[in-house]
């Protein structure tokens, strides 16, 4: 890693954080409709994992997908336009926060159904296997999805066929109000890897370099044709399940403990203390991203809203449905 690589990790984390802070504000004043699930606090996992991927690699995401998309190379202006349901969004305003995607950057989609991205990632990896290409798919999912039946079906099949996929569980300790203590007998999702004959790795999900290293190994293994790895990144989200959820089911001391482990100031300290960057450079990145996000909002709000008649389009490739 050279200095720029280190700084880029910081830049991506800050981009996710500021994008989501803006999303909170834009949601509150009504510029963003519907439901918004934020991943603030989990940036190290998103940035660290995607930092080792090539443009030709793929990811699948969850309902909490802004960070994954930004880390995979999503542009914040088109993303903000999508969240605001505008024409210049990645999905032409028809997906929004929960269905944001971009095939051209290898982001196969956020998904409103818990665990549903797992077979889709398996299928993306199956496509590499069929074609004999060396691209890899990283499947992001949560602790909640690890209790879905699809988790078992997908890990079994991907392991069986040695598919080039990395299953990356962002264990943020809660599936809405249900803590992993109340949803799993075992403590670690990663321990389930043994049942599929694949490596299971636990990593500090708030340490961007640790996530990068673990993912790098798993991706290299997948690229070599040696099959999947299950990585469990232990992390925590700062906000509740959705914007508007007070999340008072989480003990305040626990929340504070994780706020103290916030991955962004932690990494900034590391950069300065290890002499990789000086504080001025960190502040410059913060400023640069703040300006980018301000422009993204301008771009989004300047983008044309959809015409009601577009409701009937894009259902099929060759049929426009009847309107009113």
């Amino acid at each position, binding site marked *: 890693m050279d200095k720029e690589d280190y700084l880029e990790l910081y830049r991506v984390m800050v981009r996710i954080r500021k994008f989501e802070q803006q999303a909170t504000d834009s949601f509150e004043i009504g510029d963003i409709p519907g439901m918004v699930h934020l991943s603030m606090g989990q940036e190290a996992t998103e940035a660290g994992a995607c930092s080792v991927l090539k443009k030709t690699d*793929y990811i*699948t995401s969850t309902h909490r997908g802004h960070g994954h998309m930004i880390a995979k190379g999503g542009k914040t202006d088109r993303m903000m336009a999508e969240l605001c349901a505008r024409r210049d*969004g*990645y*999905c*032409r*305003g*028809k*997906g929004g926060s929960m*269905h944001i*995607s*971009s*095939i051209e950057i290898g982001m*196969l*989609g956020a*998904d*409103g*159904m818990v665990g*549903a991205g*797992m*077979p*889709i*990632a*398996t*299928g*993306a*990896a*199956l*496509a590499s*296997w*069929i*074609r004999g290409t060396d691209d890899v*798919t990283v499947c992001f999912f949560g602790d909640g999805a690890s209790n879905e*039946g*699809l988790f078992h*079906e*997908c890990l*079994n*099949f991907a392991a*069986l066929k040695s598919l080039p996929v990395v299953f990356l569980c962002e264990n943020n300790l809660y599936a809405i109000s249900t803590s992993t203590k109340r949803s799993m007998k075992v403590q670690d999702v990663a321990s389930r890897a043994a049942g599929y004959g694949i490596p299971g790795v636990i990593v500090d999900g708030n340490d961007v370099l640790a996530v990068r290293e673990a993912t790098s190994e798993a991706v290299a293994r997948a690229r070599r044709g040696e099959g999947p790895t299950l990585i469990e990144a232990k992390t925590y989200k700062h906000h509740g399940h959705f914007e508007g959820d007070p999340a008072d089911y989480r003990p305040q001391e626990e929340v504070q403990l994780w706020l103290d482990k916030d991955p962004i100031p932690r990494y900034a300290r590391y950069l300065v203390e290890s002499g990789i960057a000086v504080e001025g450079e960190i502040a410059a990145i913060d400023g640069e991203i703040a300006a980018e996000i301000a422009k993204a909002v301008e771009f989004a709000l300047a983008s044309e809203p959809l015409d009601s008649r577009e409701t009937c*389009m*894009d*259902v*099929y*490739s*060759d*049929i426009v*449905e009847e309107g009113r």
Partner: protein
Amino acid sequence: MAKRVSTSKALNNALDRAMAFDERVFCIGEDIGIMGGTFGVTAGLLDKYGEKRVIDTPISEAMFMGAAVGAAARGLVPVVEIMFSDFVTYCFDQVVNQAAKMRYMYGGNIEMPIVIRMPGGGSVQSAAQHSQSLEGLFGHIPGLKIVMPSSPSDARGLLLSSITDRNPVMFFETKSLYAKVEKLEEEYDPIPLGTASVKREGGDVTIVATGPCVLKAMNAASALAEEGIEAEVIDPRTLYPLDTKTIFGSVEKTGRLLIVTEECKRGAWSAELSAEVAEKQFVALKAPIARVGALNTPVPLAKQLEDYYLPQTENIVDGVKSILKESVIK
């Protein structure tokens, strides 16, 4: 030279032709490789195309349906076999929330060319979990196309079109039709989705029948002809998109409509068609629209019960006669 070909073999031929023509096409499902499929539809394809294009899976329907979505998103063309159409309920989310909606949610920026092949229907004494006709369930979902052939020639032509279609297609095969044989030429063209087939012309009543009911409707029409009643029998072949032009044209001519499907009648596709004709062609109708379907019960096991449960030729004959009797305009 024409040869006698079963529906299974005709489908097999269409798969073979599609796979030879387009290397993006692959088959995935349970026991489709070494075994050649529970009904022999994929026989021989593993040897010809190899294990990367004819993929035997563990029993995990939701996984491989979702994998088809992922592979389609990356430009491949999966043909999924669900061993019995009843098992598609394992993959409801992947069909209904993923495959069907992805193009829409992604603003048209993705193609979802998936064919989901499913043996369905009764009359083989397979009881409640291996005999259902679930086409109406999926006909309700925007984003899906629904295909249901009733003969070997239609089966192969429609399967070819389904594979080249850029949308998810629910392809309902009928177990009782697999062994049905027809004399076919080796050369054939794809049959465009959304084109009905008029199986028999007649001016007194229109019978729209799907899948296994087409044969029964034809038998009923012959019996009715002996009594001087001329029925027009239409097989829509694709339930969505529906060839309303052909059906509406026929109803315009006859003024009477009987719909025959093997689904249990409650909430069936036949109800949708009935409503559509009632809404759009009320003035053309001389009598109330009637439907013949299965009973609103699970599919029973015992032969005498299943025969009673399923729509039979005599039910169709009776249905037509009662429409004629109820006609307000003669």
